[in-house]
């Protein structure tokens, strides 16, 4: 039976993995409803664990205490689940895929130009884009197996798989920013998963 993470920890930990962010992105990451998230944020704020920055880039973020509390609570959650070895194995498999994913992101953003130079990919060469997307799809298949193992170890990892799949579906449907260039992109979700694995295991960057 996979562990169930309480909503306040889900919100806290999402901020740990995404940096400063807004309610909608927390909703996408946690699957919680916006109203519920706002109420959790208010409680967490009252406890001094999260802070809201104002101005043009207004967002929620962790305080130093919030960061410490998240580390403590995720460590306790992992200890209670007794699945640390499985999460470590998942990180190892993730790290095997990571350089390839980053190559793919670079290839999505840049393509070979005249004279052997690299030029910004303006997405006017459908053959290049199709080739990169094919490899994305292949990597996504291999990543799905890693996500499944992680989810069996700790239920909250289950949110990554649908988010990655959604991003890829959107790219295929023509929303080219969803590969590397938006906060909901495959790359952005992937980077969150990377951060989550490191944070969950207490490994510094």
């Amino acid at each position, binding site marked *: 039976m996979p562990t169930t993470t309480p909503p306040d920890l889900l919100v806290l930990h999402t901020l740990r993995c995404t940096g400063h962010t807004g309610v909608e992105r927390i909703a996408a990451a946690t699957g919680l409803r916006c109203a519920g998230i706002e109420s959790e944020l208010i409680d967490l704020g009252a406890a001094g664990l999260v802070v809201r920055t104002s101005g043009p880039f207004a967002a929620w973020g962790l305080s130093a205490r919030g960061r410490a509390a998240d580390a403590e609570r995720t460590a306790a959650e992992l200890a209670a689940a007794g699945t640390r070895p499985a999460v470590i194995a998942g990180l190892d498999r993730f790290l095997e895929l990571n350089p390839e994913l980053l190559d793919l992101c670079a290839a999505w953003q*840049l393509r070979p130009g005249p004279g052997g130079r690299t030029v910004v990919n303006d997405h006017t060469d459908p053959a290049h884009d199709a080739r990169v997307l094919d490899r994305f799809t292949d990597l996504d298949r291999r990543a799905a197996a890693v996500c499944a193992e992680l989810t069996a170890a700790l239920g909250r990892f289950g949110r990554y798989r649908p988010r990655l799949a959604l991003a890829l579906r959107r790219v295929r449907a023509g929303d080219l920013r969803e590969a590397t260039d938006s906060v909901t992109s495959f790359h952005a979700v992937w980077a969150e998963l990377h951060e989550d694995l490191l944070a969950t295991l207490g490994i510094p960057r």
Partner: protein
Amino acid sequence: MTRVHAVSAQLDEPAARIGGKARGLAELHRLGLPVPPAVVVTTGVCRGVLATGRLPGGLVEEVTAALRDLAPRASTVAVRSGAAVSMPGMMRTVLGVDLPGALDGALREVFASWDAPRARTYRTLHDIPHHRGTAAIVQVMVDGARDGHSGSGVAFSRDPNTGEPVPFGDVLFGHRGPDVVSGRVRTHPLGELAGREPALWPELTAALARAERRLRRPCYVEFTHESGRLWFLQLRPAPVTGRAALRIAVDLADAGLIDRREAVRRTTGHDLEHARTPILADPGVLAGQGTGAGPGVVSGRIATTAGSAVRLAADGPVVLVRPETSPDDMHGLAAAAGILTTRGGPACHAAVVARALGRPAVVGAADIAVDPVAGTVTTRAGTVGEGTVLTIDGTTGRVVLGHAGSTVDDADPHRDRLLGWADDISGNRSPRSAADRLRDAHAVLPATEDRR
């Protein structure tokens, strides 16, 4: 066909069989330069290993015997991959392999790395066929970490940023080659070799000059010195673009290495466009000083991780500030308008990538400290956070806080002379843009060099 070749001046097999690196080593031999004894196992063997999962019978003995013919007392070797088309960082190199016991495993590891998923993806993206396989070079190990008179470096025959005819590169004393290009260790400018190893400096500079005369292009070499003795491990043409490419084309023509037609033929419209790269007008209070590694001036908001560079870039130009970069930062490097590192030298990963992307870059700004966890950058002008605007000048290596203006140095005699030669070729002297003058000349020149 022979599956193991001694690497020598006589070796002249096609790159499809022995890979580009072995061909570079053979060229070094022909130049009479010191190369550690080596043999190369052909790509055909790799294809067989990938099909069967094991080395062909007798290969280890054959390689060991061929190497012992060249170096009877060889006991430790390096096993390097080397495909026909360069696939930097994608395949394995195994250093410090004991003969003959460990050779089987090292060769299998290098051959198997051809088929690693990441290498497959790289080939798919770069139109390189999957069936080719890689050659493997088995070379007597020279150890840059051996003693106080040992080290490793990379050297360009000319400064790849400015085109100036002076040797340029990085050296690390007491380290092996992979440390030099990793960016993880602070390298020294190549010129420091002259003070540390005065006997080796003239040997290195003479070798660069000789290689350039042979290739008739600016050259790049990798070298190791072990106990005061210099060895070359790699030779290939140096990639140069923009202002530097123009200057080098003109200088090579003046030196008689190429003719004026070839100087014009080698120049691209892109080089011409980038020959007018601006430099920082008035730096004011310097926040830091590093090495210019990719010319151009750029202002942007600070990002201290690749991830935040990608995020912040959605709202405008970003300067990625890192202690160093690795291939794992590629997405951030691609998203950034400029790159600043506090470690590394002019041939470190960040510098190479920046030049490939045409991004301004400053590397090795040792007076700046980055804390990617806190998202802060400490400079000579104070500590600032992510999102603060900073300006870098990838020509002079200067770093200032805030937006700073730039100026274009219009007086570029090399550009003017080259365009004059272009007009001689086209026979068209009507006033028109530089790009048109070059294009008209290219229209009457053959696509490849005509050597008369």
